[in-house]
C-alpha cells in the first residue's frame, strides 16, 4: 500500500473515532445545524490564519469558538428562531471567509481542498496534528461524558444535581471546534457535519445504550472512511464525498434491513 494511502487511512480513522461519540451528542442535542455553522465559519479561520501568519488550525478553533459565543449572545437577545440565526451566521461566516481568502497574496490556497477535503494529500505533519487534536478531543469528551449526558437527558435535573451546565456547554462547543479544525483537511468544511451525524444516526438503530451508540458510531465512521477510500482509489472519485456516500449507504442499508430493528426500541 502507498504511503499516502496509509496516512489517509490513519487520519480518517482518527477523525472517525472522535466524530462518532461527539456526533452522538450532536444528534441527541439537535446540534446538526450548529455544527454546520461552526464548520462553515472555519473558512474564515483559514483565511485569518494565512493573513495574520498564525497557525491555521488554531485560527480555525478560535473563529469557531467566537462564532459559538456570538450565537449564544444572539440567542439571548434576539427574538429570532434558532435556525434563522444559524442560517445567518453560517452563510455570513462562509462568505466572509471566501472574501477574506481573496485578499491572500503570494500563497496559493487550494479552496476546493478546504471545502471538500483532500485526504490523499495528508502529510506527516498534518497527521501529527490530526492525532494530537483527536486524542485531546477524546480525553475532553471522556471527562465530560457523564455531566454532558446527564444534561442532555434533562438539563434542569442535571443542574439541580450539581452539573455546571454552562461550563459543560462551553466544553462541548470547544470539542466541536477542535473536531472541525481536525476534520477540515480530511473531509472538508462543507461535509464535516455529515461525518458527525450520519454514523451516529445509523448507530441509533443498533444500540441499546448511549455508550454503545457512541462506540458503534465510531466503528461505523471507520468503516465509512475505509469504504470511501477504496471507492476513491478504484473509481478515482473525490475522497471526502466518497466517505460521506459510503456513510449514507450504511445508514440506508441498516435502516432498511429488518434484522437490525430488534434493538431499536431500547
Amino acid at each position, binding site marked *: 500500500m502507498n504511503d499516502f494511502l496509509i496516512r489517509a487511512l490513519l487520519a480518517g480513522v482518527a477523525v472517525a473515532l472522535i466524530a462518532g461519540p461527539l456526533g452522538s451528542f450532536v*444528534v*441527541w442535542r439537535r446540534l446538526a445545524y450548529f455544527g454546520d455553522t461552526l464548520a462553515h465559519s472555519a473558512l474564515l479561520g483559514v483565511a485569518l490564519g494565512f493573513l495574520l501568519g498564525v497557525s491555521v488550525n488554531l485560527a480555525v478553533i478560535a473563529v469557531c469558538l467566537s462564532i459559538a459565543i456570538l450565537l449564544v449572545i444572539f440567542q439571548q437577545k434576539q427574538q429570532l428562531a434558532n435556525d434563522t440565526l444559524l442560517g445567518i451566521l453560517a452563510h455570513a461566516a462562509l462568505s466572509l471567509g471566501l472574501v477574506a481568502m481573496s485578499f491572500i497574496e503570494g500563497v496559493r490556497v487550494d479552496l476546493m481542498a478546504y471545502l471538500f477535503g483532500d485526504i490523499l494529500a495528508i502529510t506527516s505533519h498534518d497527521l501529527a496534528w490530526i492525532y494530537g487534536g483527536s486524542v485531546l478531543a477524546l480525553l475532553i469528551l471522556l471527562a465530560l461524558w*457523564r455531566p454532558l*449526558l*446527564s444534561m*442532555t*437527558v*434533562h438539563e*434542569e*435535573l*442535571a*443542574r*439541580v*444535581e*450539581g*452539573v455546571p451546565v454552562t461550563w459543560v456547554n462551553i466544553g462541548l462547543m470547544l470539542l466541536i471546534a477542535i473536531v472541525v479544525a481536525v476534520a477540515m483537511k480530511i473531509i472538508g468544511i462543507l461535509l464535516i457535519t455529515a461525518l458527525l451525524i450520519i454514523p451516529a444516526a445509523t448507530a*441509533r438503530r443498533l*444500540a*441499546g*445504550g*448511549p455508550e*454503545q*451508540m457512541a462506540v458503534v458510531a465510531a466503528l461505523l465512521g471507520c468503516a465509512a472512511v475505509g469504504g470511501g477510500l477504496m471507492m476513491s482509489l478504484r473509481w478515482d472519485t473525490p475522497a471526502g464525498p466518497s466517505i460521506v456516500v459510503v456513510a449514507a449507504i450504511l445508514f440506508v442499508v441498516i435502516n432498511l434491513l429488518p434484522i437490525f430493528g430488534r434493538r431499536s*426500541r*431500547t
Partner: protein
Amino acid sequence: MAISDNRLLASLRDVSIETNGRALISHVGLDVHAGEIITLIGPNGAGKTTLLRALLGLQAVTSGTVHRARGLRVGYMPQRLQIDPIIPLSVQRFLTLSRRTSQQDVQRSLKEVGAAHVQEQSLHVISGGELQRVLLARALMCQPDLLILDEPAQGVDVVGQSDLYTLIGSIRDRYGCGVLMVSHDLHLVMEAADSVICLNQHVCCTGHPEAVSQHPEYLKLFGDAPLKGLAVYTHAHDHEHNLHGDVVPLAESEEKEQHEGHDHE
C-alpha cells in the same frame, strides 16, 4: 408527627418574580422544615412551578430572598420528562446518570418506589405511572434532605395517584426529609400533608388538611373514602379566583362570602 428534627431546610421571603413585565409570583413567603409535607395547589398559571424553580435556584427572583440550608441535598422530580427516543436509555442507565451507582443500589431504590420490574427496560416504553416512580427513585438517589416534586401524580390514574401519595408519605416517615410538592389535581391533596398552600401568584391561603378531612364536604365527596391517603382540601377566599369549578362543590361557592382570608373549616 414523631420527627424531632424539624430544622428549616429552605425558605422564600417576600419573593416576587417578573418576566417581561408580567408578574409570575408576587410577595410569596414559604418555609419548608425537615419532616414536613407541604402541598402547593392553584390554577394553571398560578406560578406553582415558578415557585419550585425559584426554591431550586433554577429561576432568578426579581425581589425577595431565597434561602437554602448549607449543604442541603435536594431531590427534584420535574414536571414532565420527555426524553427524545433518539437517546437509547434504560431505566438502570437513567438512574446512574448523576453519579456512579452500583446495580444493587439502583435495584434497592427502584424496589423502594415499587418499580423494581422496570430496571432493565427502556425508559421510552414504560408506562406513565412507572415513569413517575422511576423519577421519584432518581430524586431519592442522592439521599435528599428535601424532596421537591412537581406534580408527581400527573399522568397516573386515580388509584395509582393514591398509591403514589401514600408512598411519598412513607418516604417522608422513613427519612424525615421535607417534601414540597405541587398538586394540579385541585382539592385532592394528601391526607398526610402538613399544610396546603393555595397559590395564585400570591399566597391565597394556607391550612391543615387533616382538619378539613372531617369536613362534611369531604365525606360528601368520598363517602367511605375508598381512596386512602387522599383528602379534600376545602377552602374559600376573601377575593375572587375561578378555581376550576369542576371539583369544588356548589356549597362552597354559597359560603364564599362569609369567610375571612386564612380561615378554614
